[in-house]
C-alpha cells in the first residue's frame, strides 16, 4: 500500500528540513529587514509625519486667519463706534452752540426791548413834566386873564397850582 507510506511521510518531521527552514527564514528576515521592512516603515512613518505636519500647519493657518479676521472685525466695530460717537458729539456741540446763540440773541433782544421801554418811559416822564409846566402856566394865564391882575403875587399862586397838580390822584397821572 504505497499511498499509506506516502501518507505516513506526510506527517513525518525531518530534522534536516527544520534546520533548512530556520536558516531560510532567518536569512529572509535579515535580508528583507534590510531591503524592505526598515525602509518601508521608515518612509511610512516619515509620510505620516509629513501628513500630520501638513494637517497641523493647515489647522494653525486657519486658526491664525480666523484670529486675524476676529481682530479686523473688532477693529471695524471700534472704528464704527468711534465715528458714531464723533457724530453724536458734534451734534451735541452744535446743539449747545445753537442754544447759546439763541439765548444770547434772545437776551440781546430783551435788552434792546428793555432799553427801548426805558427810553419811552423817560420820554414820557419828560413829556408829562413839560406838559404839567405848560398846563400850570396856561392855567395861571387863564386865571390871570379871568381875575385880571387880582393876583399880585404870581409866584405864590404858582406854588399853589403846582401843589394842586401834584395832589392829583396818582392813577390818573400815570394813565
Amino acid at each position, binding site marked *: 500500500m504505497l499511498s499509506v507510506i506516502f501518507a505516513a511521510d506526510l506527517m513525518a518531521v525531518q530534522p534536516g528540513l527544520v534546520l533548512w527552514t530556520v536558516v531560510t527564514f532567518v536569512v529572509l528576515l535579515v535580508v528583507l529587514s534590510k531591503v524592505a*521592512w526598515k525602509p518601508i516603515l521608515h518612509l511610512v512613518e516619515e509620510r505620516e509625519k509629513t501628513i500630520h505636519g501638513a494637517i497641523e500647519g493647515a489647522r494653525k493657518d486657519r486658526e491664525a486667519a480666523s484670529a486675524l479676521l476676529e481682530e479686523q472685525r473688532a477693529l471695524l466695530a471700534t472704528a464704527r463706534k468711534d465715528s458714531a460717537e464723533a457724530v453724536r458729539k458734534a451734534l451735541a456741540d452744535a446743539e449747545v452752540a445753537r442754544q447759546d446763540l439763541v439765548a444770547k440773541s434772545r437776551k440781546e433782544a430783551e435788552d434792546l426791548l428793555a432799553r427801548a421801554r426805558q427810553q419811552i418811559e423817560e420820554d414820557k416822564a419828560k413829556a408829562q413834566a413839560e406838559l404839567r409846566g405848560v398846563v400850570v402856566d396856561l392855567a395861571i394865564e387863564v386865571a390871570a386873564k379871568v381875575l385880571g391882575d387880582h393876583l399880585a403875587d404870581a409866584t405864590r399862586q404858582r406854588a399853589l397850582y403846582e401843589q394842586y397838580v401834584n395832589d392829583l390822584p396818582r392813577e390818573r397821572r400815570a394813565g
Partner: protein
Amino acid sequence: MIAALVPLVSALALGAEGAGQPSVSDVVFEHVTDSRVIEIQSPFSKDVLLEWHLPSWPVQIAGHTVDLGPTKHVVFMWLSGLVLILFAWLAMRARGKSLVPKGIANVIEMVVLFVRDEIALKTMDEHTAEAYMPYLLTAFFFIVFSAGVGLFPWTATSVGNLAVTGTLALLTFVLMQFAGLSHQGLGYFVHLVPSGVPILLWPLMFVIELLGMFTKTFALCIRLFANMIAGHIVIFFVLGLIFLIGSPLVAVASVPFAVGLYLLEIIIILIQAYIFTMLSALFIGMSAHAH
C-alpha cells in the same frame, strides 16, 4: 450516483493496486509529500521531461545521523524566498526615496501597513510592535509566497509540510518566551496565571497555562499545515475522480469544481497567513504584557 461512488470508495480504501499502476491516492500523496526527486512531467503523456535527484548530505549530530541534503520542499522554499526578495527589491527600486509609493510598491506597502495597524498595533503596545514587526512581516510574506509558489504547476508547497509549519510555530514560541522574559523578567512565569485566581487553584491553573502555551504553538503549526495541504489534496482528488470513475464525462463537473477550489486556495492562503501572523502577534503580545 451510488454506483459511481462504489468504485471510488473501494479505490480509495484499498489503494486499487493493479499491474504496477499507481493508484490515484498514490499520485496525490506523492505530490503533496516531500521527496528527494524533483520531476517535471509532460502534461500530455506519462513522460517525465526532467528528473532531478537531489544530493544527500548525512551529518552526524550528537550521535544521530541527520540528512541535511535539500529535499523538494527545501528547494521550493528557497525558490519562494528568492521570488520574495526579488519582489521586495523591485518594489523598493520602483519606489526609490519618494514618500508616495507607486507600482508594486503599493502592494507591499499596503500589506506592511495592514500588518502594522491591524495586527501589531492591536495586540501589542507601540514599542513592542516596532520590535516584532520584522518577524511578523517576514512570517506573513514567507507563508504567502511559499504557498503561492506551490499553486503553480510542477511546484511543491513547502509550507504544506509539518516540519516547515512546525518550525514557524517554534519560532513564534521562542519569541513568546523571549518577549515574556525580556519584558517581565522571571515574573513572566508568575503572571502566566491570570490575577484573581484563588490561591488553591493556582497550581492547577499554572499547569494548565503552561500546557496551553504548548498547545497554542501546536495548534498554530497544525492549522497552517492542514489548511495548506487540504486544498491541494482535495483538488487532486476531484481531478482524480476522472480516472477513478474512468469516464471523461466526469471532467465536465470536476474541472470547474477544481478551478473553483484553486481560486478558494488563493483566499485561504491570504487568510491563513493573516491568521498565523495575527495569532503570533497576539501570543507575543500576551507574553510581553502581564494580564
